[in-house]
């Protein structure tokens, strides 16, 4: 059976190592925070915060304290605040060990597209282009296929890119794939999903 959103988030959390500073994107990546367990992980919010805490209790929302998804959040004992130039300085400067991001499309060469669909949806890249260019490891978490059942893991992206050759690892509801020379390598599959199933659902080249 394919992984659900929480299982994908739990799998992604396994990628994180003790002591890492990590940036989590909007959507499923946000759920990763629930699965880091005992590991000492500091979450960055690129609007100017390290040490992002959970959502506030009702009635304790602070309009001056939001994350990059504009959600109200809280601070922790380790928290620090800084301006946007400093925040992206640490991102571009490689100080963030990993970013876990959603995607519209990923290609076998590591290309990532997640900010616009020409003529239809103009979301904007926000901080995603900076993140994929700067952080140590880029992990994409997304459904393997779109709502029409088409693979989002492609030979080449069709949408405008967020970054070229930037993705290291792809975690979908069907399994885990690494970007390697010549294509994608299956690292593992979800319980009950065979390597065959994963290949069949994937438009990209799978290498051994």
């Amino acid at each position: 059976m394919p992984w659900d959103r929480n299982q994908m988030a739990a799998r992604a959390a396994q990628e994180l190592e003790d002591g890492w500073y990590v940036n989590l994107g909007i959507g499923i990546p946000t759920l990763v925070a629930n699965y880091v367990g005992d590991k000492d992980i500091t979450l960055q919010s690129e609007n100017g915060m390290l040490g992002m805490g959970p959502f506030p209790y009702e009635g304790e929302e602070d309009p001056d304290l939001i994350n990059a998804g504009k959600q109200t959040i809280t601070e922790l004992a380790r928290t620090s605040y800084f301006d946007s130039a400093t925040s992206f300085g640490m991102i571009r400067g490689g100080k963030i060990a990993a970013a876990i991001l959603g995607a519209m499309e990923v290609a076998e060469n590591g290309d990532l597209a997640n900010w616009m669909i020409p003529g239809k949806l103009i979301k904007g890249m926000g901080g995603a282009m900076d993140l994929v260019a700067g952080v140590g490891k880029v992990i994409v978490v997304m459904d393997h296929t779109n709502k029409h059942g088409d693979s989002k893991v492609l030979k080449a992206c069709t949408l405008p890119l967020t970054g070229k050759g930037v993705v290291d690892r792809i975690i979908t509801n069907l399994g885990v794939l690494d970007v390697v020379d010549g294509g994608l390598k299956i690292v593992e599959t979800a319980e009950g999903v065979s390597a065959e199933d994963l290949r069949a659902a994937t438009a990209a080249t799978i290498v051994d």
Partner: protein
Amino acid sequence: MKKVYGSAAEALDGLLHDGMLIAAGGFGLCGIPELLIDAVVESGVKDLTVASNNCGVDGFGLGKLLDTKQIKKMMSSYVGENAEFMRQYLSGELELEFNPQGTLAERMRAGGSGIPGFYTKTGVGTVIAEGKEVKNWAGEDYILEEGIFADLSIVKAWKADDTGNLVFRKTARNFNPPAAMCGKVCVVEVEEIVPRGSLDPDHIHLPGIYVHRIIQGEHEKRIEQRTTRKREDA
């Protein structure tokens, strides 16, 4: 030198002209210069280019300047859920120069720091790189991005002293310091003006040298995404 003004309109007096470039602080609706935006709306100045990460939401923040069609061009990283922003852009009424968020922040800081250009890996291989100079260091390509030099900065801080030293609060700091730096003139609205000497000089986030005019006022501070968790039963 008196920096403290009585109202947003007074503080902007003589600073606005059609076709100007304004850098605005804030991220989403957090730390935005609400009062100064309202005064820009009321002034009727038009054909503005506005450098700001977002453009507010429909009907609030910089979104008000979209409603009145006072903005000709945005320099932003995010359109997001602002329907009027997307509509004006897709219909060709509004120009939009997409800037990756970090590039936008650094371009503001650069403009305010006498740096006309810098190289970054951000956007290499994407539409952002189109038409930009490329230079290679150690086998990696970087693109040249230029400093932003604004005619005016509008900024929101938490507290100021009368010399313009500023302190921000939590994530409401965001783009405010870099936006403040890059303006020929910088006007700031704060929640409280305190006597000089009452802010710890080790903890001034933005020194008064960057600040030309200050007003104090009431802020709505609207929340865009109110997310909470339930209190667990004790």
